[in-house]
């Protein structure tokens, strides 16, 4: 499917603003972005449930719209809020097949098959009202899979479900990947990283960055995306000098070296897990070594987030609990921070 300059306006508000997007067959494309970015509207447009205000949608090179019933039958969307017909699990899953005129025994076989996939085969005769939220979500996935869509659109498929259900649904999505094209919207970064071939970042109705998962996570194009994808250290700075592609950037009283050709005022972003902590200065190829003092730490299970003050600038550093204990870190302890110039993103 391909979107060319697609916009969807509600009055003066553009929920989707001039989006160009191509979804490669058999791949998993994840649309990430904050709430209200337009992800759901974009999926609804792709599902041919909404008519774009402008632009065109092509499916296998042919222009389509919400009246293209034949194409619409090859695309299924699973909505963020689980919606099911007030009927049994079986009836819900069978709906898409019956609409397509499948014979009774074909319907029966396919319903059993997809219910097995989502581990709900034993519940076929139960009314959906008797199911838990997680079970309802599994039924919704089975319902979408039953008619064997070519393009599956998932709007936050794992929101509001317990971890085991989320894991099970994620497994299903992973198994399906390759057999069909999946576009899924989420604001869960880890989920996006685990499932996607390509990630598109959406903000204010626009796709502001698109690329392979690693690319978007490692090389965000602006500070907003950087913060969203986990660059917790974002500072205002000024490029003092650039020599051989390495810039010296002043962040307050701290001087940081980064790989950039930028000049003047800028923003500097650094992931907390890209910083190495040590009680003595490290002998390494990392260009940046700063001395600071631990001001606080937050226990996050297997990891610990350490807040370090370096001449008035607070750095957030993520280390393992084991390292934290081995180094006997405590508040007020002088500490060294080391990080590569290439780990820093400059905008």
């Amino acid at each position, binding site marked *: 499917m391909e979107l060319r300059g697609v916009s969807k306006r509600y009055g003066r508000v553009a929920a989707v603003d001039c989006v160009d997007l191509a979804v490669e067959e058999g791949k998993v494309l994840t649309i990430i972005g904050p709430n209200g970015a337009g992800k759901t509207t974009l999926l*609804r447009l792709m*599902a041919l*449930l909404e008519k774009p205000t402008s632009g065109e949608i092509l499916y296998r090179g042919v222009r389509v719209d919400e009246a293209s*019933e034949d194409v*619409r*039958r090859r*695309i*299924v*969307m699973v*909505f963020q*809020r689980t*919606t*099911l*017909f*007030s009927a049994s699990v079986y009836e819900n899953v069978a*709906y*898409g097949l019956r*609409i*397509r005129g499948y014979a009774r025994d074909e319907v029966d076989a396919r319903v059993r098959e997809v219910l097995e996939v989502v581990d709900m085969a034993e519940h076929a005769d139960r*009314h959906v*009202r008797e199911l838990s939220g997680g079970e309802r979500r599994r039924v919704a996935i089975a*319902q*979408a899979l039953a*008619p064997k869509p070519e393009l599956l659109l998932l709007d936050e498929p794992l929101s509001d479900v317990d971890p085991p259900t989320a894991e099970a649904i994620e497994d299903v999505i992973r198994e399906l990947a390759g057999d069909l094209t999946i576009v899924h919207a989420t604001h869960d970064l880890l989920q996006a990283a685990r499932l996607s071939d390509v990630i598109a970042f959406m903000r204010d109705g626009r796709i502001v960055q698109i690329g392979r998962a690693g690319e978007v996570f490692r090389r965000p194009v602006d500070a907003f995306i950087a913060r969203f994808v986990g660059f917790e250290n974002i500072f205002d700075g000024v490029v003092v000098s650039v020599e051989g592609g390495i810039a010296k950037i002043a962040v307050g009283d701290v001087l940081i070296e980064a790989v950039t050709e930028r000049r003047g005022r800028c923003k500097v972003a650094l992931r907390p897990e890209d910083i190495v902590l040590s009680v003595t200065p490290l002998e390494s190829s990392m260009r940046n070594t700063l001395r600071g003092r631990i001001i606080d730490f937050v226990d996050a299970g297997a990891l610990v987030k350490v807040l370090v003050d370096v001449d008035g600038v607070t750095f957030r550093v993520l280390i393992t609990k084991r390292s934290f204990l081995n180094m006997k870190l405590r508040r007020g302890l002088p500490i060294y921070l080391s990080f590569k110039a290439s780990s820093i993103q400059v905008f």
Partner: protein
Amino acid sequence: MWELVDGFLKALQLLASADPTVIEIATRSLCISGAATLMAASWGLPTAVLLAMGSFRGREFIKGVFNAMLGVPTVGLGLVLFLLFSRSGPLGFLRLLYTPMGVAVGQAVLVTPIVVSFIVSAVESVEPEIRDLARTLGASELEASMAVLREARGGVVLALVASFNRAISELGVALMIGGNIRGVTRVLTTSIALETARGEIELSIALAIILLLIVLAVSLLSRLLRRWGGWMR
């Protein structure tokens, strides 16, 4: 007081012996009001679906009109229909006055606001995502509308039950359009009025009991269907 008890006992006798007059009047009432409900459903259901799912100018106004007509006085409606159906009236050529069909049409008009308003309300209370769900699973616009209607089936049945009960219990339209002609348009309500005026209290009470039983039975049946069948859940 004793007259009432006496009448009640005699009424039970009439019922137990399956009095032919009582059976005939009750059957006619059932047929006329059943036909009226079917007629009202045939035009009320599509109207309700259009009002609940469509988006056109004046939709809210029309819904308001149907709501306002819920409490229309039956005698007033009977009078208007009498004037329309009378020989010199604009619909006189249909020759509906003093016929069972005339009464059925009159009752259908009377209960149409109930059919429309109740079904509109039921359809509007269905989750809006149901329509999208049906469509994304491959349904056409018509099939998606049917899916929404199916979700509202409890409300649709309630609308039909309420309509039937209103039709069979009303007096004004049956009296003015039907004329209470013995063996032709005499129904339960008109008979009760007539027999009471004539002092035949036993027969009146017997007919009133039948009327009550029918109304209760129809309501109960719909509830039982809901409980047993599961299809209205």
